[in-house]
């Protein structure tokens, strides 16, 4: 490529080479919102080739292309190619790494009780100083227009239980943790779940806690990754 062409005022297609030139010059690029955003889009190039570095005084941030040029002719990036992983020839979990129902239940119950102790479920009060909540100050401290704290409690419950499950030394297991928190005002409610999985390797645990005014239900599903 030779010396870059000057921008000639046409705004319906974007020429990244011209944009780089105009970036520090006049304001004629006002029709283009953000020339430095992610991927340069151009219909004029069949192959994305970075311009020669010789007389470039501008930063080359525009051209963050991968070196193997994985873009199509429109300049948009190709979808990532899925990696194929080698076969492990395993048909079940290893010794000592299986799903242990009792351990998971104990861990889940402990965490749920720890989080719910002293936490006002739905009112706007602030909780007592609990160690476990200091970690989640970013969730709890947010000044969001919400009538209640229930959403924050649910988020914290779910994150804490998931972190605890990761420590249980159950490799090759995927976890899904669900929390439902709400007011108990005399309404009727039923939760049900059904799973299509391998009953020998997978399982679930449900923990329920109720007070006079509120309830919380946490379910954990553990699924073996074959």
């Amino acid at each position: 490529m030779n010396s870059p062409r000057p921008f000639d005022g046409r705004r319906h297609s974007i020429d990244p080479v011209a944009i780089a030139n105009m970036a520090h010059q006049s304001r004629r690029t006002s029709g283009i919102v953000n020339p430095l955003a992610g991927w340069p889009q151009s219909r004029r190039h069949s192959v994305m080739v970075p311009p020669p570095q010789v007389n470039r005084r501008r930063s080359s941030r525009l051209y963050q292309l991968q070196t193997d040029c994985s873009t199509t002719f429109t300049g948009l990036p190709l979808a990532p190619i899925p990696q194929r992983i080698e076969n492990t020839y395993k048909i079940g979990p290893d010794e000592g790494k299986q799903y242990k129902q009792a351990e998971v239940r104990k861990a889940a119950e402990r965490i749920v009780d720890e989080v719910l102790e002293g936490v006002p479920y739905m009112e706007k009060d602030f909780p007592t100083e609990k160690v476990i909540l200091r970690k989640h100050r970013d969730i709890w401290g947010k000044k969001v227009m919400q009538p209640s704290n229930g959403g924050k409690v649910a988020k914290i419950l779910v994150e804490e239980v998931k972190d605890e499950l990761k420590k249980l030394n159950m490799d090759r297991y995927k976890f899904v943790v669900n929390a439902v928190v709400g007011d108990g005002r005399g309404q009727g409610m039923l939760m049900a779940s059904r799973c299509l999985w391998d009953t020998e390797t997978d399982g679930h645990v449900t923990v329920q806690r109720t007070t006079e005014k509120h309830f919380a239900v946490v379910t954990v599903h553990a699924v073996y990754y074959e």
Partner: protein
Amino acid sequence: MDDFQAGEETTFVVDDVSTVIKESIENTIGGNAYQHNKVNQWTSNVVEQCLNQLTKLGRPFKYIVTAVIMQKNGAGLHTASSCYWDNSTDGSCTLRWENKSMYCIVSVFGLAI
């Protein structure tokens, strides 16, 4: 060079699953009002129908379907979920449905095998 896996879909497709869920809810509790003695059967039916339709899709996934049916009372409800899985292949779909007397929330989690 390796191609994309054109024939078999190995990622969770949210749109298909969400249509499946909607159909099964409408078929089971479509025009009914909340009845305490029937709600047990309704939740089971919703979940079973969902699961049956999902297996008919014939994809290499393990599924977890949860449903909550709650009477409309002015009470508040919050749900949250956190999943430890493989982001590129697994996914979830949650649908919230209501009529004049009750709310129904169904979540489907699909985990690739």
